[in-house]
């Protein structure tokens, strides 16, 4: 601590409430001058006990609860949970539903990556670029609203399929949006990748080597930017991805080499926007006809789920990486066990090697570079000093009181 009279290293605390953090998380940095010596962070500030609530609700209700795990990954969590329940209850999802799920999933990826690109530009102090990316993002939001009825928290995926069909009149809206984005992508790539300032701030900043990326079990764009060829859509296809041509986006084919730095993470995410456009196009051209859900009536889905016993895992490649839902059902109305492992959970640990020996001014962009989503992550299990422990409410209260006292000191 800084109070013991020594000059260096001193402690710098950022968060849990800080304007550059959209969500509460607390960082403690050991600093030597401007340089970060070591990092510790405390997530779990937004823990809402969603799994606990889920164990008291039935699968049809839980789907809408999973929507609210994270406002950005609405499709991801609902889809992962539905996939798990469908495996347990042996519900055959119609092919058309799979394609609709993929289209929405990819639109979500487009809006999420554009959102991230804007936030990254903002963290670099490039606010005009933030406003540009967020303006173009609105078109994806319009399409999502047209297809699902809501801009965020779509509530479109349900166990057994989707709740709305995509009608031919909507194809044109989707096509228009895709051509806009394909035209815009060159401009965005140019703005982000050819800009001297962005290159100077991001090249070789927050480096995560391939070895560290594998050791720390990072997922999604964070690991792909370090050269790990891993994408659930390519390795373990779910929904309609088996029929589609998806290859993991790596920085090397586009930039010639892999640095594993913040710049490479921008590269991967921007090229994934282009890839998502292609996937949606492919889906539209191969869209099979037929029903969009296995069972329209929620009461009937519930009746099927009530009889189901077994356990299953639903895995989905979220915009931030692999998201996993484990569900166990024992022939009762609500599941006996439900565990959510969101993608940021795997990625948060990569902050520690990334931030080491970097400067204070680079903290915001490095923290943002893994696209952290803490509302996804804040489940009950915490890992500290390599030990895993489950916190009860009393523990949380005690920790909270201790923390308040510490903060007031």
């Amino acid at each position: 601590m800084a109070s013991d009279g020594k000059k260096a290293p001193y402690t710098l605390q950022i968060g849990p409430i800080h304007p550059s953090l959209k969500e509460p998380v607390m960082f403690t940095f050991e600093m030597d001058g401007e340089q970060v010596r070591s990092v510790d962070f405390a997530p779990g500030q937004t823990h809402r006990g969603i799994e606990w609530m889920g164990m008291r609700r039935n699968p049809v209700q839980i789907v809408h609860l999973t929507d609210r795990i994270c406002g950005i990954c609405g499709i991801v969590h609902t889809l992962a949970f539905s996939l798990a329940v469908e495996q347990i209850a042996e519900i055959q999802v119609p092919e058309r539903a799979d394609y609709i799920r993929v289209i929405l999933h990819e639109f979500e990826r487009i809006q999420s990556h554009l959102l991230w690109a804007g936030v990254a530009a903002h963290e670099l102090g490039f606010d005009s670029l933030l406003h540009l990316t967020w303006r173009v993002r609105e078109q994806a939001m319009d399409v999502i609203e047209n297809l699902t009825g809501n801009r965020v928290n779509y509530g479109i995926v349900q166990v057994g399929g989707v709740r709305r069909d995509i009608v031919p009149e909507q194809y044109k809206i989707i096509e228009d949006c895709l051509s806009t984005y394909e035209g815009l992508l060159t401009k965005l790539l140019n703005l982000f990748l050819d800009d001297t300032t962005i290159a100077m701030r991001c090249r070789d900043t927050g480096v995560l080597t391939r070895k560290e990326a594998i050791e720390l079990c990072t997922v999604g764009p964070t690991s792909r930017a370090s050269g790990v060829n891993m994408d659930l859509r390519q390795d373990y296809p779910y929904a309609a991805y088996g029929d589609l041509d998806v290859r993991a986006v790596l920085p090397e084919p586009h930039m010639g080499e892999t640095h594993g730095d913040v710049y490479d993470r921008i590269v991967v995410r921007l090229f994934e926007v282009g890839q998502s456009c292609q996937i949606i196009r492919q889906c539209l051209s191969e869209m099979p006809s037929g029903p969009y859900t296995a069972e329209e009536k929620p009461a009937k889905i519930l009746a099927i789920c009530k009889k189901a016993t077994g356990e299953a895992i639903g895995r989905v490649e979220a915009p931030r990486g692999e998201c996993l839902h484990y569900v166990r059902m024992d022939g009762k109305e609500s599941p006996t066990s439900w565990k959510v492992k969101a993608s940021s959970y795997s990625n948060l640990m990569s902050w520690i090697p990334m931030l080491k020996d970097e400067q204070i001014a680079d903290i915001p962009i490095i923290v943002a570079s893994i696209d952290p989503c803490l509302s996804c992550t804040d489940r009950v299990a915490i890992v500290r000093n390599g030990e895993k422990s489950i916190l009860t409410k009393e523990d949380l209260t005690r920790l909270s009181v201790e923390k308040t006292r510490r903060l007031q000191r």
Partner: protein
Amino acid sequence: MKLNSAFNRSLWVYHFNSGSCNGCEIEIVATITPRYDPERFGIKLVGSPRHADVMLVTGPVVHKMKDRLLRVYSQMPDPKLVMCIGACGISGGVFYDSYNLDGPVDEVIPVDVYVPGCPPRPEAIVHGVVTALAKLERLQGVKA
């Protein structure tokens, strides 16, 4: 809406996340970006509660955030307004039966404007800010 002397000053807004799902955060940021552009009227997000006239609170106030919410609220200068964004801050919403909630927001700090929705649309948030502005005028005794 008729422009009056309250528009002589800009309305600065501070955003506090009390355990939200991120949905409202995104809609708040979408609100301040070019399509809606409330900065035309001097409405902008600021980084410190000490600079703010209005605080936007999102989320159902989880246990860990209660003390922080109180502290941030006390740091705001008077006259101050609180806007509660989203269904879960108003009533607990989908998280109503969670064991870790100290909310809803109005049980922790006084709330002036409620913006319902899960999450509310940017238009709804802008409308909420306009409503807050009208209340601020009343508090300051500004004549229309």
